[in-house]
């Protein structure tokens, strides 16, 4: 392990580490543009120049590998002048677009210029004109003038997606980032281009002009788009509610997790946030009174109706004719509470979570998974395994179609992606008391005796298990939409009405109870899950080998 | 002279003095605004106009009156509605009543009848005026009490304390005047100031009782509750007894203030500045110390004397305005300190000294 000194501080790092990485370990941030830890090294921006003792010239920290006894200085006058010079060069042809540029506020050019720049410009020359505001794909807008030719994006499409849509054309200061002729940048991960771009050359068309980034609040969360469970940040706009068309969630950004998604996320997941505040959210309880149509209602009446109708129905047709569908779109806590109420409390044996695989599911070697449910693994653990009956959604729907099910709870979303509206309408026709606890309006809420709105993942704390079994937690990013309530509260209210044991209403406490009772989660808590989550199956595997 | 004529003359004199007080009081509302403006490099009220005529804002008097009469007369929720209504009347009534004993001239002879230019030549005029001014405090106290408002009540109590404190000084200074002129009649006091001191100086109270004047002015201003002694009112911050008054009832309090101001000016004139006396003017004309004489007929003399009275009163009104717009308000403790610890001892000393001198000179 080479030992080196950076700015008079010594650190020992593994061989093959670069100076920029070693400095980062010491908390010394060396400015960079072309260097991206998820991509190969280009060494072209020259921003990370540092002084290495015994080297005749300044060295780029991103491509200087540490050697034993190396002495690096990052704040000398030579380095300062070089950084100022590089920034001056980068800005020589950079347009004064900050007012209209979406990157402003998270732009590395702005940041480094404020930090390292030389404030008095000597540039008198005219700037070059290049292409502006070119939509190069469904999600990405290119502004070549703003490009500093760091080639991160080119390396991203070459190395990560391997789709090779982008290239740098022409020479010298006429060099320009452009898509290859006749190609649109529409790969499944194109949104990441806006993330890797350190300046405003590649921006997200979806986010375009919606909110200024400095108004955004960040919440750590986990993508619910598929079983991968990519770590994300929810960027919400709570401070200027008139921006972003009045919606709270402005965008999703990937959050680095070396075990799950590295720096990336797919476009499907990235733009999935739109459903959270979409117009078809169920925002109010709906109740169908006998002899009348479905009406908008309030929580007290709706809960009383469930109490009455379900008690009546179960009393008449028996528990055997009752069934629950709890989809794997629910969090571990919600599934645990549902299990407690329905399986242990009400003794409903027919509680299902497993659906037929998604016929449209896509999977690739990078991130995307066929299973579009975020918590199939957890549902299987909590509802499936300890429970001998373990029916699938299909068997329950068949039983319902055959008239064997009179009372049914349908909890959680995602069913509509697997089953067509017509099919569900057909299968559920004979169910007399249908209780739907849903985030969105659908055929389920339409047919429901009582439909209750529940919160989506952005409005609630919780944890899910990805396809590998990694338990990851997500946090509430916004208040519940409309009158929707957390499912844990709804289930606890129902349990109270039926004088059954309730699961804790606080997700954190509920998870603690789950950890005590389900072996897989043993010893875990929200605290130990941390930002990146824990994979208990891997933990036990490593424990077995050592 | 028959009784009917006597009543007619009395009514005439009463109307004259009331009109004088009221019109001067009205004018003072304008003077107050204009004088303060001129003192403060401003212009002052000048917007009220009739047919585009502005006459330096004189129409504001009318405008104010119209406003006072037409504003909503808000009566607070109080069990003493009658007292609440009567309080401002009391205030203004006693202030006006005091003018009865103020001599505004010597006397004129019409058709052989000598008519004294004074509504009532009471031989205890000083005591009368003193009594009236003391009773005036009722208006204030009753207003504060009947308003059913803590702030008004506090204002009334402050007013009582202040008026009682300063009344003593007020009375004691006048004792000095009584001692010197040896009479309680106002007309007599004025006549006594007709001679000359040392052959050239008018024998006015100011020269005989300089300290008395100072103390009297101070106490009198305190009695009128005007700045710097406006603790009972303190419109701008501490508010006072008339906080629950509006419309013309409030107007009456305000007007009573101005009337009292004129009254104080008249008293100062009468006691210390020779009342209607014009220096060197005798009943037949001027007789200057250097021997020159200038004969005038009786009418001329009497007119000059009434004019002199009006001028003197006007001057002291102006002076009070000047004081009111110059000095800041006393704090309540300062007010009490001044009254009890400074003015009272000084006035006692003044009385004693006067008595000793009068005794000594008399012997």
């Amino acid at each position: 392990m080479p030992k080196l000194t950076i700015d008079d501080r010594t650190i020992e790092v593994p061989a093959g580490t670069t100076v920029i990485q070693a400095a980062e370990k010491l908390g010394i941030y060396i400015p960079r543009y072309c260097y991206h830890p998820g991509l190969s090294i280009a060494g072209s921006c020259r921003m990370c120049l540092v002084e290495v003792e015994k080297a005749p010239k300044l060295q780029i920290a991103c491509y200087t590998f540490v050697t034993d006894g190396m002495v690096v200085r990052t704040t000398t006058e030579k380095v300062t002048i070089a950084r100022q010079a590089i920034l001056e060069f980068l800005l020589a042809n950079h347009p004064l677009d900050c007012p209209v540029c979406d990157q402003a506020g998270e732009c590395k050019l702005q940041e480094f210029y404020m930090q390292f720049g030389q404030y008095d410009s000597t540039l008198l020359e005219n700037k070059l004109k290049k292409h502006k505001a070119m939509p190069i794909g469904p999600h990405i807008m290119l502004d070549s003038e703003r490009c500093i030719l760091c080639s991160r994006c080119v390396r991203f499409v070459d190395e990560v997606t391997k789709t090779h849509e982008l290239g740098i054309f022409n020479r010298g200061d006429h060099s320009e980032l452009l898509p290859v002729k006749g190609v649109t940048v529409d790969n499944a991960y194109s949104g990441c281009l806006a993330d890797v771009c350190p300046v405003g050359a590649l921006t997200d068309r979806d986010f375009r002009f919606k909110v200024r980034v400095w108004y955004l609040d960040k919440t750590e969360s986990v993508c619910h788009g598929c079983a991968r469970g990519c770590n994300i940040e929810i960027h919400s706009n709570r401070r200027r509610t008139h921006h972003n068309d009045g919606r709270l969630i402005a965008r999703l950004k990937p959050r680095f997790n070396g075990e799950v998604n590295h720096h990336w996320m797919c476009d499907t997941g990235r733009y999935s946030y739109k459903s959270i505040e979409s117009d078809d959210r169920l925002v109010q309880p709906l109740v169908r009174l006998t002899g009348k149509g479905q009406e908008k209602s309030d929580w007290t009446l709706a809960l009383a109706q469930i109490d009455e109708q379900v008690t009546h129905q179960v009393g008449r047709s028996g528990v055997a004719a009752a069934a629950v569908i709890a989809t794997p779109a629910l969090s571990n806590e919600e599934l645990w509470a549902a299990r407690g109420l329905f399986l242990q409390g009400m003794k409903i044996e027919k509680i299902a979570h497993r659906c037929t695989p998604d016929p449209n599911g896509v999977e690739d070697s990078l991130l995307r998974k066929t299973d579009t449910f975020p918590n199939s693994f957890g549902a299987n653990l909590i509802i499936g395994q300890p429970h001998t009956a373990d029916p699938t959604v299909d068997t329950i729907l068949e039983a319902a179609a055959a008239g064997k099910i009179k009372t049914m709870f349908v909890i959680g979303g995602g069913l509509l992606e697997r089953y067509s509206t017509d099919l569900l309408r057909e299968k559920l026709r004979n169910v007399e008391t249908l209780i739907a606890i849903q985030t969105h309006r659908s055929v389920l809420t339409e047919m429901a005796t009582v439909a209750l709105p529940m919160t989506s993942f952005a409005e609630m704390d919780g944890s899910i298990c990805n396809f590998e079994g990694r338990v990851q937690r997500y946090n509430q990013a916004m208040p519940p939409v409309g009158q929707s309530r957390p499912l844990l509260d709804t289930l606890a209210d129902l349990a109270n009405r039926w004088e059954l044991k309730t699961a804790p209403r606080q997700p954190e406490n509920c998870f603690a109870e789950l950890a005590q009772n389900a072996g897989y989660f043993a010893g875990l808590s929200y605290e130990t899950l941390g930002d990146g989550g824990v994979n208990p199956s891997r933990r036990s595997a490593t424990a077995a080998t050592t | 002279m028959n009784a009917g004529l006597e009543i007619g003359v009395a009514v005439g004199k009463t109307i004259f003095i009331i009109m004088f007080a009221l019109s001067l009081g009205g004018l003072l509302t304008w003077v107050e605004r204009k004088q303060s403006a001129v003192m403060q490099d401003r212009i002052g009220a000048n917007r009220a106009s009739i047919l585009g005529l502005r006459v330096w804002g004189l129409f504001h008097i009318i405008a104010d009156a119209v406003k006072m009469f037409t504003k909503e007369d808000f009566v607070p929720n109080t069990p003493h509605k009658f007292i609440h209504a009567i309080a401002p009347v009391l205030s203004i009534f006693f202030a006006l009543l005091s003018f009865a004993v103020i001599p505004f001239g010597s006397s004129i002879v019409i058709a052989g009848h000598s008519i004294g230019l004074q509504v009532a030549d009471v031989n205890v005029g000083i005591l009368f005026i003193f009594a009236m001014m003391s009773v005036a405090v009722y208006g204030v106290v009753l207003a504060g009490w009947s308003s059913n408002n803590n702030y008004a009540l506090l204002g009334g109590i402050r007013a009582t304390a202040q008026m009682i404190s300063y009344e003593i000084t007020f009375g004691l200074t006048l004792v000095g005047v009584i001692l010197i002129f040896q009479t309680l009649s106002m007309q007599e006091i004025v006549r006594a100031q007709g001679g000359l001191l040392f052959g050239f100086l008018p024998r006015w109270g100011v020269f005989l009782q300089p300290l008395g004047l100072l103390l009297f002015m101070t106490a009198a201003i305190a009695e009128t509750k005007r700045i710097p002694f406006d603790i009972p009112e303190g419109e701008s911050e501490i508010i006072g007894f008339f906080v629950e008054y509006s419309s013309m009832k409030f107007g009456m309090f305000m007007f009573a203030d101005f009337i009292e101001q004129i009254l104080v000016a008249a008293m100062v004139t009468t006691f210390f500045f020779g009342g209607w006396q014009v220096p060197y003017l005798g009943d037949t004309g001027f007789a200057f110390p250097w021997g020159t004489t200038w004969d005038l007929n009786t009418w001329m003399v009497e007119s000059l004397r009434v004019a002199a009275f009006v001028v003197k009163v006007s001057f002291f009104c102006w002076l009070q305005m000047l004081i009111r717009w110059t000095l800041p308000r006393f704090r309540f403790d300062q007010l009490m300190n001044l009254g009890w610890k400074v003015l009272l001892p000084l006035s006692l000393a003044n009385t004693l000294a006067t008595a000793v001198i009068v005794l000594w000179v008399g012997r």
Partner: protein
Amino acid sequence: MGTVRVIHVSERRRTLTFWERTYLLEVFRGLVLTARHFFVNLWRHSLWLVGVKSGPPGAATFQYPEVRRPQSPRLRTLHRLAKRPDGTPRCVACMMCETVCPAFCIKIVAEEVDDSSIEKRPKSFDIDIGRCVFCGFCVEACPEDAIRMDTGITEIGALSRDGMVLNIETLLSLPPKSERGDKPVDFLQQQLVQ
């Protein structure tokens, strides 16, 4: 420039001399001062009244609204939005003013515009004058010199709180004082028309 003289509090609270404490003389001095003002001003008023207007006036008063106080060119008055030569707003909805505004009185909603040399423009631009503290930060912050406080309008009134919210059309329609000259803008009237 001279040095700054530090006045100590103790220095200001010096003890009064005997004559000052007797108060009488000070009262008299005060009266002399105010009386002098009174008579000097009365004299000047009189001179003006008889038509001698060469001397200083007796009062510093401006007979508003007939006479208006001259405005400093730097005076911060009602905002306006500057226009490009083609009449479109210069504002590109960068939100700098909205961000810097300490009173949170600016609300901008951005929209995209086809012209790739502009890209962004305000869809709506509201200033709640009722909240504005006239600090001028928005003008300082504006990178496009689009928001300016040079209308010279200081009389701002409306009959409701909503009336105090100026929208983009109003802000664009206001002329700078340099163009308007001294012609007063009946601002309230404009609001009422809306």
